């Protein structure tokens, strides 16, 4: 009987938590699988939406920033420049919106069953990652169209995907936990996402930002993520601003660690206040 002894006491669950997380590891997959299955039910063109949305965004951004504003992209075709930035940005913004709403949408689970709550926002990020993979195929198609061959740096891409994950998790956990308590965040998140598209180098290369402002610009951690993606995908043509990248990395780590901590702290009251 002493094999699974468990003591429930106010504020004394930390060690058990990570063990439970391991026990429920398949739930990450099942929740993501559910959301993916349900997502395109009763739609006419189904999964094509995952292609059409980024494609149209790319065209609009290319026209606005590349053709009307005539921003510089070096020798890189503007659509590729835009798409290499759009890829992490869309992943981040989708993950942020989905995960911040995830707990609210799963209220019935939170108030009726026990499992480590961190699974809910995390699996909604996994869902956004599936969209990301589909968009990545689209980028590969565009690169073939333009005959654009990436160099060795493309192999470092998984590293930057990991960084994007860190960003999405950090922001997502913060917002998911805050949203349970203060529903105000339901209105704040769409605003962050909309605003972020303009203050992050999605439609343009961060090279167009004047040098004296670049360090300040790097305080937006998505600058580091997007620059990293461009550096890996576009190869030799694109340069990375290392001091800025390091700042972004530090900020993202802080965001992630504090996100996990805040979520853990708030988690024990979720069932009472949701």
């Amino acid at each position, binding site marked *: 009987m002493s094999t*699974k002894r468990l003591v*429930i*006491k106010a504020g004394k669950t930390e060690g058990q938590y990570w063990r439970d997380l391991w026990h429920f590891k398949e739930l990450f997959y099942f929740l993501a699988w559910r959301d993916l299955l349900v997502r395109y039910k009763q739609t006419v063109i189904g999964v094509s939406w995952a292609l059409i949305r980024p494609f149209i965004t790319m065209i609009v951004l290319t026209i606005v920033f590349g053709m009307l504003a005539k921003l510089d992209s070096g020798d890189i075709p503007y659509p590729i420049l835009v798409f290499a930035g759009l890829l992490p940005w869309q992943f981040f913004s989708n993950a942020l919106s989905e995960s911040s709403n995830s707990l609210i949408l*799963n209220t019935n689970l*939170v108030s009726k069953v026990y*499992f480590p709550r961190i699974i809910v926002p995390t699996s909604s990020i996994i869902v956004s990652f599936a969209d990301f993979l589909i968009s990545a195929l689209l980028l590969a198609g565009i690169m073939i169209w333009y005959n654009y061959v990436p160099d060795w740096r493309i192999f470092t891409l998984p590293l930057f995907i990991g960084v994007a994950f860190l960003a999405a998790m950090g922001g997502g956990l913060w917002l998911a936990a805050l949203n349970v308590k203060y529903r105000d965040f339901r209105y704040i998140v769409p605003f962050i996402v909309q605003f972020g598209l303009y203050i992050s180098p999605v439609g343009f290369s961060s090279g167009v930002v004047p040098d004296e402002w670049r360090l300040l610009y790097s305080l937006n951690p998505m600058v580091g993520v997007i620059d990293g993606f461009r550096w890996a995908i576009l190869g030799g043509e694109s340069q990375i601003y290392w001091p800025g990248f390091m700042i972004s990395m530090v900020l993202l780590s802080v965001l992630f660690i504090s996100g996990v901590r805040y979520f853990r702290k708030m988690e024990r009251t979720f069932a009472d206040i949701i």
Partner: protein
Amino acid sequence: MAEPIITVNNIGKKYILGKKSESGAIKGGFPTLRDRITDGANWLKNKTISTLSGKKIVKPTYKEFWALKDVSFEVHPGEIIGIVGRNGAGKSTLLKLLSRITEPTTGEIILNGRVASLLEVGTGFHPELSGRENIFLNGAILGMSRSEIKKKFDEIVAFSEVEKFLDTPVKRYSSGMYVRLAFAVAAHLEPDILVVDEVLAVGDIAFQKKCLGKMDEVAKQEGRTVLFVSHNMETVQSLCQKAYLLEAGKIKEVGAPPAVISAYLRSLESLMNTYQGKLAQREDRSGEGTSRIIAAKVEDADGRKVIQADSRLRITIDYQGKNKILHPQFSATIYDYNKGIGIISLHSEMTGGLAQVFPEKGRLICITEPINITPGRCYINLTLLKSGTVIDYLQHAIYFDVEASDFYGTGKLQDRDWVMCLRQHKWLLETTEKIDAKQAY
């Protein structure tokens, strides 16, 4: 005796209901971001004033509510424990603490085994997914691994009796099928401790029996421990070896089910007597609360106090609220007092005919056909709904006794221990002549 499988030591759970404003009224709900900001600003202001003037500051007070307080007990392996108590006595909170959905404020619980809880039927079912997909999803949510679910899949399907509809989205299921599938998944969990809230109130009788049988089997043959909450006294009586009575967050009585049940019934009686004609003062109610049922009365249709099996009932309900009620619905459900089993549901949605808008304050009268209930005590649960959402729900609002009378005109009578309903009838021996059912009366 072996080591207890559950040990609960002085457990307590506190909820904060809302902030008391200066007038002393409680603001509903939880603090919003704005509240936090104004609180912060006020604190800063008061702090400044108090440092300057040397006066003490008064902190804003929140109304606290202890859903459970100083509860201790032990459960041994293989025991089936029934938990009874009124609405708001802390039963659900206790189950939530045991299943780790929420944390205790004080005290500790020691569990010597894996807990699975079934607080709601079909938690996490997704209407768009098929029965098959939902079995996997629900299983995973309840803590089963994929291989475990695969192994038991056929057994689950057989238990649920929905083989033919496995690939149909559950949104097309009847509510009975839905419940069957959901319980089937939960019934095949293999925890050491099973915690069950009143989930069997739904579903048909035959399936309820099957589920109770399964729970009994689980406990007796496999040595599992079961804790469950029910308003159905008959179930508690037949299934449990031991029962707890919870009242106002404390354990009031522990013992063999018959003794605990009668203590529970006594407490119900005193509750209903105390608040007779003062229903507005009762706090153990649920719903939005924008309007309240403030009084209720049962008499026979002619206004007499004595109610007999062939009486027509007149139920009078007074309500009051701040706003007009759009699309109001009223329901009064009559239960057998001792067993907690529903006998008659009187629901305005079934009969129709109520106005679309009700004034802020008013009186509803419901008159029935002869009730044909066997003699014995009944209680009534009252619900007031607005466009389908519950505004006010009062469990055990009032009770009445059906007095013995000569229902059949033969001096013979059946009693409540055996059946609930009475019906005029005739017995005939079939002869060569055809019996005309209409002419029989």
